[in-house]
């Protein structure tokens, strides 16, 4: 059972990492538009018409 003294801190570390990732995701607008990316991934590559390439759908805040 002594393994718990190692496993619990490890678990807490994991939790900390998950929380950090989650906060980052919220901050970078990952939850703003939950439908769009699903459609974009299908359509985006197929356009050969654009003269410009600088239209990544990124945040510009």
């Amino acid at each position, binding site marked *: 059972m002594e393994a718990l003294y190692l496993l619990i801190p490890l678990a807490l570390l994991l939790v900390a990492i998950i929380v950090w990732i*989650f906060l980052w995701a919220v901050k970078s607008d990952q939850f703003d*538009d939950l439908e769009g990316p699903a459609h974009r991934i299908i359509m985006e590559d197929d356009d050969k018409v654009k003269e*410009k390439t600088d239209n990544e759908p990124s945040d510009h805040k």
Partner: protein
Amino acid sequence: MFLIQLEHPLHRFRTSSHKICLFYEKNCTMTHNPPLTPCFHCGLSVPEGLDIQVNINGNNEAMCCYGCQAVAQSIINSGMGDFYKFRTMRSQKAREVVPEFLQQLKAYDNPQVQKQFISEKSELTGDEQVREVSLILEGIVCAACIWLNEQHLNALPGVISANINYSNNRARVRWDNNRISLSEILESITRIGYLAHPYNPDRQQAVIEKEKKQQLRRIGIAAVLGMQIMILAVALYTGGWWGMEEPFRQLFRWVSLGVTVPLLLFASSPFFSAALRDLKNKRVGMDVPVALGIGIAFSASVLHTFQGSGEIYFDSVAMFTFFLLSARYFESGARKRTAEATEALLNLQPAIATKLIVDSDGGYDHQKQLNLSVAELAIGDYVLVRPGEHIPVDGTIIEGTSGINESLLTGESLPVIKTVNDSVIGGSTNTESPLVVKIDKIGDDTVLASIQRLLEEAQNRKPTIAKMADRLASKFVAIILLLAGGVAVYWYQTDPAHWVAITVATLVVTCPCALSLATPAAFTAASGQLAKLGLLPTSATALETLSRATDFVFDKTGTLTQGNIRLVKAVSLTDDDIEHHLHIAAALEAGSEHPVARSLIQAAGETTQVRPSIKVSQLDNKAGAGVHGVIEGTQWYLGNVNYIHQICAQSISSTLLAEHQISAMTLVALATETKIVAVFAFDDELREEASALIRKLKQQNKTITLMTGDNEASARRIASQVGIDNVYANMKPADKLARVQSMQQRGAIVAMTGDGINDAPVLAGADVSIAMGSGTQLAAAHADLILLSNHVEHLYAGYLISRRTLKIIRQNLSWAFGYNLLAIPAAATGHVDPWMAAIGMSASSLLVVLNALRLTRS
């Protein structure tokens, strides 16, 4: 010449005896035609004889109209034919882009106007003049539309970036103002078949966004940390069962405490601040027991952790927090969606006026114009109002004669003829010819502002039906608090060692969770269902009241009817067939914005498919009477019955009127100098689903009333068509409000449906109000529900959903109370272990949520 053209393709389908052709009666339009091909762009059937095609991805595809053709062609030309592969829904029927529309767009380039919704991005200076605007897009039906718009906008030279949010159809466009103007951007969106309106994402919106993110953070952290705590709690519970070494037990307590502290500080903080606010205002809401439960459970657990003995309740703290936060998040999501949709209805019309600059001698010149925002107008200014434009503020006509459509203010469906020295009301629409208006009143003195005041008064006097759930809950809360106090005092005296554990178990087991989830969960599920119908509720109370409504009151124009008049019947009185006459009439009216003229032109275009080029000379428009013109040497007159009577001394016989049942309609006759050749009957067409709605509501034993500002005759006619017995005509906004208030005094719960500015006060005064999405912003802004789809029959479906919602809420509440009735005595007498309390609490919350989810099944 046009006769030869008319001989052409459409005559093939004509039956032999066509002396009197009746068309535009419901369900009989073009029934004699074979099945038609659908338009490749919008899916509507392609009219017979029309042969326009666009080469799309290698195939020639048929188009139903020139609007669709232009749109499809410009999509193909810009190389985005893939749109047609990707899309999952047919596009909306495209409009032809008319020069007037483009002229209106130009107003958006005006710096005064741009100030309202454009942000300058100064950090990117240099040669570029970067600006950013938020747009609401109309006509988006599926994901491919969004792709198309994004690609199209990004391909425009001068556009720096364009992003569209899939969930709310809002676009954010950045452009370089030196290379492209805003009106050009808007125009290019129109070219591919969509409509874009700039809007102002005001500070409130930003605050809501920020709040939403904060909520999301809280939920996420409560979930992640909560799971961790739960793992430890399960270990402790099973340890309590099977035996566990004390050092590990104590370790688990400390770790749980360590994980709970950040959760409590960050995620649970809203409950504490809300409870504090409630106490300050001397109210007891749901937040007080929640905060108390969390606070006591946490304090007791901390105490036990330091003592190294006794139970800990950290898992209950986490679960409480997570469940309640989620419920509130979803509820506010439903509200936000409604708010966004309402916002889409607002600010659509740029508040711009064309001011005529006055010379030194007091005169004005039509050429010296100045575009400015309505707020900048002053009394005594001269404004030019073109056909199709709104009259900006109250004033007097100085020059010109025209039909003014005041339907939004009065409910009257036909324009009223006004000429020099007549007063006009701000908010009405000019339909025929340009007018110069001198401004008499601005700001608070206008008719519009007085209606606004009436509306505010009505809202203050609105009967408040307290929310059932809140009413019950606050009583319940008071009882729980008293009970917990009693339990604490009792056990402190009889068994001081266990009083904390038992008091906490009592508070935990009562589960404010299930209670406070009961309403929001059902409301969220229901508003999701309603949104599919295009019906957006603004609050749970709105649904509750709708489900209990006893009286349904409807406005006429724009609610039960389409709000614009259509050609209903056309009768030829000569040997020539009616299409021939219709084309002459349409040619005479070609330049007019009058609704009668527009529907004539539309009817002519829809029935014969080929537009004969008829040349009219010496066209002369007599406002309020009719038009006169010469075609191929023949004098033609088109106008109302009086005008035609003056011309050719003939009247329309009453037998003819009776035969075609058109006596109560608006009649326009086409005549030569000697005789009447054709009669056209117009009517504000009933919405197709209106009769079905009324019939179904009647089956539910609801009292139906029609209230309109329009005249008695047309009100009666519409009422008899849909089957309404109680009709009140010629009602001013204040009359409607008084009538509804007297109904309420009789004990009726009134649901009012309307669309116009004149309905706004009565909407505010009714117990529950439904505004049509196509109506005015004033009506929509104060309504409890907004019918975006404009499909009135959905109101009935909405009513049924509201009934089911109320049923679910009742079930949820009874479950929560029933559970408590059993659990509280058990807990108060010390028979509930903490793990039982925790399981009971979660199970009852889960049950409430699952029950609410039943609403999402149709």
